[in-house]
């Protein structure tokens, strides 16, 4: 359970950015969360909704965009890896579909504040 500390970091970032732009209210938070992380989007949203209390984002809508894993291989392959079959939890198949070597993930392990929305006319 580390969604709470992650949520706190995200809200701090959002509030700082809004403040930098002279906004005193945040209406929407949009996040990108990698599918190859252990961050649970539902828990993250729940934590965010609690962490925002008393901040300019108190009434913000929270949207989470899942990011599927992507990878590259030293053989030159890059793309979205398959999902390992028959596992109780989704995990990328780290074997390169071209050469069988282990690939490096280039996406799917992130948790990023992609966009915040604030009332217009605070900064143009």
């Amino acid at each position: 359970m580390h969604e709470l500390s992650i949520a706190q970091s995200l809200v701090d970032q959002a509030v700082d950015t809004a403040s930098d732009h002279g906004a005193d209210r945040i209406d929407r938070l949009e996040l990108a969360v990698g599918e190859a992380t252990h961050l649970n989007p539902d828990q993250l949203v729940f934590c965010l909704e609690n962490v925002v209390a008393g901040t300019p984002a108190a009434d913000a809508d929270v949207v989470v965009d899942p990011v599927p894993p992507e990878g590259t291989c030293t053989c030159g392959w890059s793309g979205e890896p398959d999902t390992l079959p028959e596992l109780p939890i989704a995990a990328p198949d780290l074997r390169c579909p071209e050469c069988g070597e282990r690939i490096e993930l280039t996406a799917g392990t992130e948790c990023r504040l992609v966009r915040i929305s604030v009332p217009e006319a605070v900064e143009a």
Partner: protein
Amino acid sequence: MLTDLFGPLSMHRFGHDRGDTDGGSGDHDHNDTGGTDVLARYRERASEVHERVVHDHGVSCIEFLGSTGSGKTTLLERLVERRPADERVGAIVGDVAGDDDARRLEACGVDVVNVNTGKECHLDASLVADAVDELDLETLDRLYIENVGNMVCPADFPLGAEARVLVVSTTEGDDVVRKHPLLFQSCDAAVVNKTDIADAVGADTDRMRTDITEVAPDMEVFETNARDGSGTDRLTEYLAASGRGHAHTD
């Protein structure tokens, strides 16, 4: 009417419950610095720990993680007992509460920093950096980090070690690998511990090996009985090869 910050320069409209879903004028985006990846920030902190411990001070740094009761501390006791006579060992030990593991390692002559994480379920690189401050790196050859017993959260939080060694035991069931693929993928080596009682608890260690190879290709696997130390020699050799510290070499 809303202004988007962070987003791409392309216009971005969205439904909103305050009555501005009519495509009303004035929605526009600002291309800001882009949001920081919070998880990447933890990975960067891990790199800083690595730089300081391994590169600046030439201390070999190995992390052990796995469930509570998998045998991490017992394995560390065996490794410490078998260390070369001149090897000076430090350890950072994470637990939600208490200092039981820290005391055991201290009894083996290890310079230990105990980290109680309280409500957090894993060590992160910031906690490790603070703990490193309490150690005299000049006096150490090797630093072991024992993470909080947890099979989920540590996957997203590397600590800067040269090798992450995941310790699982046969008592966790031979399907433990399949239940925790992302954690295996985040580690460099796996120890299957308590092999002496595999039959008694109905665990098929061959299946565990096969699962590890499927989930984390090329992962080194070691079978041990940490209580009597069997199987730890190969692990010792692996750690000697993967964790040397490399001060002044780059």
